[in-house]
């Protein structure tokens, strides 16, 4: 490697560059927390007026997925990787048995004439001792690798994050009880057996629970329950209890003919069209525990069906006709139609995710923590003893290390 290349590499790997990049990343993500994300260009132009175009130009409207942010993170990863690689040689050198740092004389010397006590101290503190005339001891030489281990953990984390972004797949599956969904690639059929909510004595919601049945193409069958904080794992897919909603069982009766012309579950916010009458029945919402809130709007106090009501809006030829709040089985009579919602059924929203980066990210977490622990608490410590003078050296924590040696020495002397 020529001198110029080395110089460039050293610069890229320098702490200066790392700090500048970290500050830029921090600033970028601070702004990301202050500016609402993913709201559409017009929102920023209206809300921030003169700053709007700058926000859009710098992609601050989608800060964490913008090209600028990705480039900053890539540059930081390069800096971190180079720094780690370039410092390995000197770290391995410091781990060798014959390496000792220069011992600082200034105010650091501990006077102790009794070599026996010093030897006992070295033994007690588990120092690996060498030398005859000048006793030298070292401990946690490998601790010099702490920062490197942490950096490797961070690099693995970035790698995991990248793999997660590129390879993960996420989809939502909405199921009513008895509904099925076939996962073609994985080869199994998922059936929702039951979705229910549990409540405590005060009526507060405790948990959303989905009980599902899996029928694998290989003949395996199993039934499992999943809830928030307890996802279901099957064939590389994870199923999360993500959301829920209500459907109402709509029944439309033609009173002239005395026959049911439509019956089925209608989801909140969706509508049913009665062609003959050009009538649209919109289920505006279902309120299991109805109350009237501010602005005379219906609200639900809890998700327990204490006072169930349906809010329904009728349109004819595209024009609103009327709106109603009705109890289950309470009929709306419109022309020759009797419209009722007999009962409500809750549906479950499952988030299905496959992400090959999970083990990588988990490994990175362990490596980062291990590295930091080694770096902060298993840093190298050195001692030397010659002519009644005991010296200590630790680049990380000289004062504390020296204090602990002095107090141990005093304790040993007292014991002696």
């Amino acid at each position: 490697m020529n001198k110029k290349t080395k110089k460039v590499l050293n610069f890229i790997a320098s702490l200066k560059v790392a700090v500048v990049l970290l500050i830029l990343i921090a600033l970028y993500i601070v702004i990301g927390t202050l500016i609402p994300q993913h709201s559409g260009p017009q929102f920023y132009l209206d809300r921030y007026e003169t700053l709007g175009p700058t926000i859009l130009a710098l992609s601050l409207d989608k800060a964490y997925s913008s090209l600028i942010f990705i480039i900053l993170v890539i540059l930081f990863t390069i800096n971190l990787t180079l720094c780690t690689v370039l410092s390995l040689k000197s770290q391995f050198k410091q781990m060798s048995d014959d390496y000792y740092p220069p011992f600082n004389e200034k105010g650091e010397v501990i006077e102790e004439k009794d070599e026996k006590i010093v030897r006992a101290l070295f033994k007690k503190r588990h120092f690996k001792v060498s030398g005859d005339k000048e006793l030298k001891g070292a401990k946690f030489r490998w601790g010099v690798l702490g920062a490197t281990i942490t950096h490797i953990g961070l690099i693995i984390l970035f790698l995991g994050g990248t793999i997660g972004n590129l390879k993960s797949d996420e989809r939502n599956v909405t199921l009513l009880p008895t509904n099925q969904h076939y996962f073609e690639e994985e080869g199994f059929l998922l059936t929702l057996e039951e979705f229910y909510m549990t409540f405590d004595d005060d009526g507060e919601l405790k948990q959303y629970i989905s009980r599902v049945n899996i029928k694998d193409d290989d003949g395996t069958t199993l039934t499992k329950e999943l809830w928030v904080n307890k996802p279901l794992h099957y064939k590389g897919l994870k199923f999360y209890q993500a959301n829920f909603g209500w459907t109402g069982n709509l029944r439309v009766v033609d009173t002239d003919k005395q026959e049911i012309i439509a019956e089925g579950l209608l989801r909140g916010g969706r509508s049913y069209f009665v062609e003959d009458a050009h009538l649209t029945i919109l289920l505006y919402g279902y309120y299991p525990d109805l109350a009237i809130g501010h602005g005379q709007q219906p609200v639900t106090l809890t998700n327990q069906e204490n006072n169930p009501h349906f809010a329904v809006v009728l349109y004819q030829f595209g024009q609103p006709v009327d709106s109603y709040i009705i109890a289950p089985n309470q009929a709306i009579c419109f022309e020759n139609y009797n419209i009722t919602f007999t009962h409500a059924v809750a549906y479950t929203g499952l988030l299905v995710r496959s992400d090959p980066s999970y083990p990588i990210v988990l490994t990175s977490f362990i490596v980062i923590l291990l590295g930091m622990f080694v770096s902060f608490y298993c840093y190298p410590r050195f001692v030397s003893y010659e002519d009644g003078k005991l010296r200590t050296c630790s680049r990380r924590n000289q004062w504390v290390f020296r204090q602990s040696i002095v107090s141990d020495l005093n304790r040993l002397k007292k014991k002696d």
Partner: protein
Amino acid sequence: MYQNIENITFTIAFFFYIVAAISYLVLVTKLSGKVEKGATWATIAGFAFHTVAMIARTIGSQRVPFSNQYEFALSFAWGIILSFLVLYMIYRFGAIGAFVMPLGILVMGYAAMQNKTVRPLMPALQSLWLTFHVGTAILSYGAFALSAAIATIYLVDSKRTSERKILEDPVVSDILAYRVTVFGLLMLTIVIISGAIWAQKAWSRYWAWDPKETWSLITWIIYAIYIHLRLRKNWKGKMAAWFSIVGFVSVLFTFVGVNVLLPSIHSYVS
């Protein structure tokens, strides 16, 4: 009944902390050196009552008191005092109390202003990770508060003559602030990692750039820069002290500011 016990012990703890803070201030102003023992006992007594208040809350709500702004402030103050007491047991630097106790009192005061009603945990919070995640956050925030207090002592001492210094050797306050920060940073890393693992279990993703987690990362970056500059560039003394204080401001913003100002999936803590 538990609510009453909690309220009474909270008030007594608060009272003891005020007594301790005043005593430590007397110690620091060198008006009397005899108050240190009394101040320390007042701190210990306050801490004992504080612990009882937390236990009463735990029994009353049938869960650890970590789930809303009041409970976290109560625990945060507990973490600050615990950090101080541990440091005191090791190094016997009572004067630090003059700077730590007011922080503890402020956080207790903030807790007193919050809604104390016991609410059931929302489904996402019903996890063992809550105890671990918030428990380490308390230790981390407590350590950062202590580090900021020691850093303030360093800055005050750096302008004083040797007879008027709060801690005799500024090198000692500099090193202590660093040591405590290092512990806080390790704990903060555990907080972020445990939060990520928990988020993955509850919401499918390790990281979602929620303001609370983002600001925790910002705090982590600030302290990481501080540690690197200190170890690699020998940044000690005043710069290091200012870094500790800036880091703690970021901690406070993550704790209070994010809840109040930024919409977040962590909003259930407000």
